[in-house]
């Protein structure tokens, strides 16, 4: 990457003075330093157990799809349900891909006409708090949702637990998750549309929490109405991460005083922030009426791997161009591939004019919906957008195992109005296949993580260099025929631990209907979409 020359004017003296003034005003507290190191030690211990990240907007993936499509592979002797008095919490299905764990969980409240605020408390692994990482899908804060009353009394979410690749030990872990149920008498109102854009509405009554990197949300504890985000499935997602008790607790010197800030987001070096349904109890908004917890053992032999590692056909034609898909692999929730779209006549010289609106990138869509993270690749060095590439693509999203015929490759364009890419045209249908030989070879090279040096649960794949096609570099004058960069051979890693079982089919774990016991909670009202 070539850095630009600093285009900014010299730092104003007033700015410099303000920085110095602020620094001079900082208090010097030895207590702070001591507390910091004590806490650091504890965090390091926790990090050795697991560094995990949990995507907060679980509903992004889709609330009930996991339930519908993942296969039941047994292991039903787990304690996956905690239900009493109409309040229930269950973990229904789990897929663990070594780096990413996805679980579907169901919450239920009594159908008694009351409205409850429900949310997950801080999960722990082997008793240590899970460290959340805020790098994915955390632009909203999953704090609590309204259930009961005018809202559904049961609902199922999918919660992605994204492992930090450096230090996750894949065996003998136990994930504990708690749900907290609060009762509230306040009505709800949808957050105004202009909220996200910082609309000019009166915030004098609002409380703003510093969320350490997450988009800030506001709540009005003194108001009669609570605001919520309306997710796709219709269950309000309450914007309750802003309230005074949390602010006060965060400002408190004693770390113990922050005990009610249950959920912490952040990983290495990132600030913890406090967002938790537990804090609702002291806001006057709602009062705690029940807690339910579920424990989930995580063992190495539960880890599932690639479902597919190739395509039946990997070359396609589109509008005078050839599309080639290489290094395809697919798991329950991700598709990786290198995708190239090259014009038959070669790539003309890059004259600096790029038609981004034509071929911004290639995308993978499933059931007509773009997979998350599709905005990869690009055309920035291509003339007139005649070539698109997507090298080392990683598409995140739910992969419908029962509808593989719906996995398609699409050309996408950027919609300036929605500030996102949209499907322009479906180019080809992808037919994933599993190459057993390649899978076995990969399994043999699989390394259990013992050091921070590499990702666990997955052998390294071929690496591609350089990051743009060779044809991207313009030559003088004439057109040139595009060519793909050479691939370096797959590195082999030493087997520091015994390899995982060689079975290639995904293993999923689901509680039986009896264990799940949703029906046993005596609920008569069903939630939307369940």
């Amino acid at each position, binding site marked *: *990457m070539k850095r*630009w020359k600093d*285009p*900014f*004017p*010299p*730092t104003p003296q*007033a*700015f410099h003075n303000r*920085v110095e003034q*602020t*620094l001079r005003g*900082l208090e*010097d507290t030895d207590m*702070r*330093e001591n*507390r*910091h190191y004590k*806490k650091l030690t504890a*965090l390091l211990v926790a990090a050795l157990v697991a560094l995990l990240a949990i995507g907060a907007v679980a509903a992004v993936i889709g609330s009930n799809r996991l339930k519908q499509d993942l296969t039941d592979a047994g292991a039903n002797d787990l304690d996956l349900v905690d239900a009493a008095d109409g309040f229930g919490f269950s973990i229904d299905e789990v897929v663990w891909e070594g780096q990413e764990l996805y679980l579907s969980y169901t919450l239920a409240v009594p159908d008694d006409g009351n409205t409850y605020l429900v949310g997950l408390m801080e999960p722990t692994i082997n008793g240590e708090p899970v460290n959340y990482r805020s*790098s994915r*899908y955390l*632009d909203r804060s999953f704090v609590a949702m309204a259930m009961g009353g005018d809202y559904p009394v049961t609902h199922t979410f999918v919660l992605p637990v994204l492992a930090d690749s450096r230090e996750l030990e894949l065996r003998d872990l136990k994930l504990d998750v708690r749900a907290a149920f609060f009762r509230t008498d306040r009505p709800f109102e949808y957050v105004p549309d202009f909220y996200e*854009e*910082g609309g*000019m509405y009166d*915030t004098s009554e609002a409380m703003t929490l*510093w*969320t*350490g*990197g*997450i*988009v*800030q949300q506001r709540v009005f504890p003194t108001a009669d109405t609570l605001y919520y985000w309306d997710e796709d499935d219709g269950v309000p997602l309450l914007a309750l991460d802003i309230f005074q008790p949390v602010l006060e607790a*965060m400002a408190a010197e004693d*770390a113990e005083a922050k005990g009610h800030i249950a959920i912490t987001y*952040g*990983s*290495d*070096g*990132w*600030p*913890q922030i406090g967002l938790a349904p537990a804090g609702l109890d002291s806001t006057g908004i709602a009062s705690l009426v029940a807690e339910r917890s579920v424990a989930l053992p995580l063992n190495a032999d539960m880890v599932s791997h690639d479902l597919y590692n190739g395509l039946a056909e990997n070359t396609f034609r589109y509008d005078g161009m050839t599309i080639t898909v290489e290094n395809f692999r697919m798991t329950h929730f991700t598709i990786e591939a290198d995708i190239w779209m090259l014009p038959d006549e070669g790539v003309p010289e890059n004259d*600096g004019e*790029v038609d*981004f609106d034509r071929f*911004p*990138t290639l995308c993978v869509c499933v059931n007509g919906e773009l997979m998350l*993270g*599709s*905005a*990869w690749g*690009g*055309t*920035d060095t291509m003339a007139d957008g005649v070539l698109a590439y997507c090298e080392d693509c*990683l598409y*995140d999203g739910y992969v419908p195992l029962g509808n593989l015929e719906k996995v398609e490759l699409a050309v996408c364009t*950027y919609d300036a109005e929605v*500030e996102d*890419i949209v499907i322009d045209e479906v180019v080809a249908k992808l037919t994933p296949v599993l190459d057993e030989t390649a899978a076995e070879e990969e399994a043999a090279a699989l390394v259990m993580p013992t050091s921070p040096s590499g990702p666990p649960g997955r052998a390294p794949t071929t690496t591609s260099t350089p990051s743009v096609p060779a044809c991207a570099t313009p030559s003088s004058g004439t057109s040139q025929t595009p060519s793909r960069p050479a691939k370096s051979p797959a590195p082999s890693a030493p087997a520091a631990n015994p390899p995982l079982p060689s079975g290639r089919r995904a293993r999923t774990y689901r509680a039986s209907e009896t264990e799940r016991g949703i029906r046993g909670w005596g609920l008569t009202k069903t939630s939307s979409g369940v």
Partner: protein
Amino acid sequence: MLQADFIQRVRACERRLYRVARTMLPQESDCEDAVQEALLRAWDRLDTLRQEAYFETWLMRILINQCKTFYRRRPPAPAELTEDIPQPEPGRTPLLDALDALPRKLRVTLELHYIEGYGIREIARILGVPEGTVKWQLNRGRARLKQELKREEACR
């Protein structure tokens, strides 16, 4: 981290703090306020910084969020549409003018990458968005920047 270390590291990245704040906020006075608030919060939340190696990135993230707060409090007034390109202020460069003409999201991503030198992964963490989004914003930002630079050049 000791107070002296904190101060030293803040001073070392003062220029970067200014550029990031200036990218987010058009008013110099807002930049000053935002960086002051960010420093106070960083100091107050220093115990949440788990690896000192991430200090600068962590601080930038705090600053950007503080700038977002300012931005929401006082969104910039929409510029009046005009055919004329105003004369650049003293000390301003065409690149800075072009950057300022971009949407804020693209502007910040470009600034972090091409001026501050952050990698895509770091930017994703700083901004709290997926890496794919960062890549897209870089792609889009570069294209828009080229357009703006050409437009400015043509109007000069």
